[in-house]
């Protein structure tokens, strides 16, 4: 086992040298998490918007469930997806287990409730402000949702980035359904877990540094977007 200083030096060298294995792992991580975020946005934003503007019996219960689903344990999601995609499962015929697609499915299930719940809150606040004007203009439900999504775009970008942050940092679900197979389903978090277990801290730390950099980058982007929007009086 290397000491911390030595491991950190090796990690930096790995990152700076552009090690192909490292780049492959980072690339797959981004590909899986960005795809899952995009699918979660496609599903979560319209549901969030609909929950924001409609009132129906049982709405409070639905909100409680959606909010509770934000805290879904990744391992449990991984297990459920595994059960469905395994050979004996209802979707086993698709042959998706231990593929990046399975990882995308698991991450999508994890972050869709986050996108739905957060966007519902953002759009409900916006709708409270616009409601009378929109009703005065006799906008249809679709027109209302479209306008809310557009006017809430900067806040919703924060929601998207929150979803992406959750996806890219998640390990429990992707390790169960992806299997952490080298050159196929190994992503940053599963590689960190594996290399740490093996005692090879250099690669683990290198990946950890990149993951931290991505987290910092995401937060910096959120901040920049908000500042730009506020300056342009669009927020």
């Amino acid at each position: 086992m290397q000491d911390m200083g030595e491991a950190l030096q090796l990690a930096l060298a790995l990152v700076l040298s552009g090690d192909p294995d490292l780049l492959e792992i980072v690339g797959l991580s981004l590909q899986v998490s960005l795809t899952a975020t995009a699918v979660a946005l496609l599903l979560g934003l319209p549901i969030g918007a609909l929950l924001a503007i409609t009132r129906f019996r049982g709405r409070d219960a639905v909100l409680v469930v959606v909010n509770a689903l934000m805290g879904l344990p990744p391992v449990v999601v991984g297990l459920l997806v595994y059960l469905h995609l395994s050979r004996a499962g209802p979707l086993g015929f698709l042959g998706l287990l231990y593929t990046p697609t399975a990882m995308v499915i698991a991450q999508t299930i994890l972050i869709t409730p986050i996108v739905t719940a957060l966007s519902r809150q953002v759009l409900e606040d916006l709708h409270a402000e616009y409601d009378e004007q929109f009703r005065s203009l006799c906008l249809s439900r679709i027109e209302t949702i479209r306008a809310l999504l557009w006017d809430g775009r900067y806040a919703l970008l924060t929601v998207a980035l929150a979803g992406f942050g959750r996806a890219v940092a998640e390990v429990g679900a992707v390790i169960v359904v992806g299997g952490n197979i080298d050159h196929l389903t190994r992503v940053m978090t599963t590689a960190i877990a594996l290399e740490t277990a093996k005692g090879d801290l250099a690669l683990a730390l290198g990946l950890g540094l990149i993951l931290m950099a991505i987290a910092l980058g995401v937060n910096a982007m959120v901040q920049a977007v908000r500042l730009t929007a506020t300056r342009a009086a669009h927020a």
Partner: protein
Amino acid sequence: MREVAPDLRGATPALLPLRARGLTLEIGGKRLVDGIDLDLGGDGITVVLGPNGAGKSLLLRMLHGLIQPTAGEIHWGGHPLTTDVRRRQALVFQKPVLLRRSVAANLDFVLRGRDGSARRRALLDHVGLGGHAAQPARQLSGGEQQRLALARALATEPQVLFLDEPTASLDPASVLKIEEIVRGAAAHGARIILVSHDLGQARRLADEVVFLANGRLVEHGPAARFFDNPASGAARDYLAGRLVV
């Protein structure tokens, strides 16, 4: 001016006259609007006056269909208050509700491609915002925001234009500009129903006055008669600046 506010006189099917009967609104067991009967003819500017809590804004919202009355009925030109009827009305709120977009995009939102940029330009010039098209709407001053809200309402070519205290807390120049726009819209056939607390404004604009107190319609008649010779004690107290009980 003609291309900004098309002449709506004789527009068919006409929304006027308005006939409201027994309009009542109860919230939490409290009667906020109490059995109002109101008939409005086809032309001019009606100013709705009354002390705070008289039910002026609630009446406006009921006539436009934003609030459902607890009891009573409303007919515009013999038609019930359907979406089709409401589409030919517009309401400008006391605090303008502007989209988080540019000035031009706020107008495009309601123009929806109708007549394109020429109409947008004409509307902005008409309300004195010609040089502000690309500016974020929320960076405009209070008076400019209200003029943009008014331009957006006019863009829908309403037969009936409701205004809910549109000049509250604006400077005198902005007030006069907005009054000029409102007068112009009325001259082109839009029926104006305006809620105001500003007696000076009511004297300048009103053809007729509807006076409310405690949720009831107390007086309704020509503006000159209301200001010179109010029939009720409540209206006399209101005009004299005394508390209306």
